């Protein structure tokens, strides 16, 4: 299994957890979302909208909102108790960081928002498929 796909599964993992405690959309919608994502590893069947739930990672528990637009995850917003990243988020970050060049230790001025990181992850996944 490629690293990219593993990362994608971890994103799905987040959505699955979100699905369990979603507050903004109905149960049927969530179930459909989870099933299709798990089955196809594809966002094509996910309806646009905001998916809110509790994201539990290790000793931290955050409320997050995953924004889906045009069948793409366009953002993951922490809406309550912005705390650390372990577990699934850590894997996502590790994958993005690993793409940086070994010629430098850090890049000044590459201010990334969570949106930008998700875009980068999406691009990486498309390349991995």
């Amino acid at each position, binding site marked *: 299994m490629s690293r990219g796909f593993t990362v994608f599964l971890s994103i799905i993992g987040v959505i699955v957890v979100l699905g369990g405690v979603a507050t903004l959309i109905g149960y049927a919608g969530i179930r459909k979302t989870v099933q299709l994502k798990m089955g196809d590893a594809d966002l094509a069947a996910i309806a646009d909208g905001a998916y809110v739930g509790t994201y539990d990672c290790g000793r931290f528990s955050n409320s997050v909102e995953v924004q889906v637009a045009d069948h793409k995850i366009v953002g993951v917003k*922490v809406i309550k108790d*912005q*705390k*650390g*990243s372990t577990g699934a*988020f*850590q894997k996502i*970050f*590790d994958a*993005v*960081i690993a*793409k*940086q*060049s070994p*010629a*430098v*230790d*850090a*890049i*000044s*001025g*590459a*201010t*990334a*928002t*969570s949106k*930008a*990181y998700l875009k*980068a992850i999406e691009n990486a996944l498309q390349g991995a498929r």
Partner: protein
Amino acid sequence: MEKHTFCMDTLVAQMAHGDAASAALTAAEAEMFRLVRLLNFYSDDSDIGQLNLAAGNRDVTLGAETFGLLTQAKTLAGATGGAFDPTVGPLVRLWRTARSNGSLPPPAELARAARLVDYRDIGLDAARQVAGLRRPGQAIDLGGIAKGYVADRMADVHRAAGVTSGLINAGGDVATVGGRPDGGPWRIGLQHPRKARGQWFAVVPASGQAVVTSGDYERFHEVQGVRYHHLVDAQTGYPAASGLMSVTVMAERAADADAFATAVFVLGADAGVELIRRIGSLEAVLVAKSGTVLISRSLKGRARIGRIGRQLYF
């Protein structure tokens, strides 16, 4: 060892080497969370939120940390002649709303907001840790130095824990503790202002200094084909049109580097270079829209600068 944390709407990366590394990374992350909660200045409940609500009306007692950061911000505003100004809040609000609507702020409102920007209206009483804004409608926005400040404090935690080789990268604001574990300086790439994120045009060495870059390529929006970036010139109320694409400043502290990078960007090449020279302890790399790169003479032979255009040392 490395640790990555999603915080301040960005990715904060830490590196540390040696026996103290693990404890330092965890402690620095905890310090970041603590400061972010404390300085959450977009919330009316925070110290700065209260100060803004009370503008022109009464003074507010601040926590020690907030008072310290506000004092530092006012000092930096003075040092830059107001080119960096923490009372830019009313303008930031207008542009933030415009950005989310994909519109432009009404010119009359911009003019009114611009008249409210003046760091000299921040009253500070150190003995009582009390602060106030002189005129109604004035508002503090520490967004310009908050990330740098948090990076500084995290680096302090590394040092206190005994780390001699560490690096904090708070979404592009870089603070270093010592140099690389192999003894050389950290190699900090400077984001190319017109290429994809992660592509750099220069590499500067840093051992214990901070490296911060302000550019017109971050946080902008377009209206009818015209780009409006986030670095506002308080004189006009509009995004600074000083002929620069990006400014990198190296300083002892990331908060200072942050403020000076913003100020130089607003001032433009001539006045910006003069400011860097006058302060003395700073090093800088300026990229003009023409492609000309202006570099501190002290970086000659130490920095690798790629070809964007003409290179001039000052």
